[in-house]
């Protein structure tokens, strides 16, 4: 993994010696130890469990411990359909996670409603209407290898972070609000 160029826009720290290497080292350790939150809702949860099991072991990439509480997790994998009854709880759990936090939207239902987009009155048409999503993984359900690829993309996102920007003001995506 080559050291990325110094994207630090802050003029005060731009030329501080070794800042680039410090960022690189910290991001390297963070990216190889992303702890996900168990947030399986529907069918995609079964593929998430299969990713955690022996054949497509997610533990070899550092994401083995699936925390049950949001206060100890840094990645929320929303796997499965979110309904209007469940949506406030998703938002509340996202708010309880400490910064820096990432969200993977796994499966067609959380991207834009999936198969329920036209006639599903009770289905939230995409979880990015309530929380900012970093990585979208299409599929119904996505294969475990696809979830691992999504995890790698989150790790790549982590490489670009700066430790002086711990709350991700520069890199956090926006919540989608259609007109």
């Amino acid at each position, binding site marked *: 993994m080559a050291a990325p160029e110094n994207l630090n826009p802050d003029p005060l720290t731009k030329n501080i010696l070794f800042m680039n290497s410090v960022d690189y080292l910290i991001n390297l350790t963070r990216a190889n130890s992303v702890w996900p939150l168990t947030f399986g809702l529907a069918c995609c949860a079964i593929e998430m469990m299969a990713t955690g099991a022996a054949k497509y072991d997610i533990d070899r990439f550092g994401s083995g411990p699936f925390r049950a509480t949001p206060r100890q997790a840094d990645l929320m994998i929303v796997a499965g359909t979110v309904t209007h009854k469940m949506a406030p709880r998703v938002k509340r759990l996202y708010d309880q996670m400490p910064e820096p936090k990432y969200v993977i939207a796994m499966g067609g239902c959380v991207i834009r409603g999936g198969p329920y987009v036209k006639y599903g*009155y*009770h289905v939230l*048409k995409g979880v990015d*209407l*309530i929380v900012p999503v970093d990585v979208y993984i299409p599929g119904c359900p996505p294969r475990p290898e696809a979830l691992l690829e999504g995890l790698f993309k989150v790790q790549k996102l982590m490489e670009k972070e700066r430790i002086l920007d711990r709350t991700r003001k520069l890199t956090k995506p926006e919540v989608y*609000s259609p007109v």
Partner: protein
Amino acid sequence: MATHEEIFKTLKEKFGDRIVEERLDAIDPFIVFHPSIVQDLAFFCRDEEKLRFDLLSLVSTVDYLPQAASADGKTPAVAGRIEVVYILDSTVHKHRLIAKACLDRERPHLKTVENVWRAADWHEREAFDLMGVVFEGHHNLVRILCAEDWEGHPLRKDYVIPDTYHGIKNVIY
């Protein structure tokens, strides 16, 4: 194990003309009963020795919109109705029964059978939630599947999906 004819005969003997219709020639034979006898019919079906319907499989509802008379006068106007279908099984005699009641679409009220089979508790709550059938005497008739503050009864044929829910857009295309 009794055949459908024998079961229908037993019910007809007990309830007479409150059994409005019997259909033996359908793929799944059923009876249609008047809504006022629902609790007596339920107790009779469960307790009578020859019947012993102790397992309530399903309480299903179907919505039929009113149809206007056709222009040439051949088919008359049909009033709208909501049908409540009870599907009963017997673990003792291994036979089954499908019994229906037709309710008025404007005021679909029916007495509850939750003190006969406790499985009816959640089935009736779902029928209320999705179709709007009010079961009188139910101890806790609130919405079970949709969110608590959802408006309308979604499985009715004239239901329009709301555009937003609590400010979040619900209809994308």
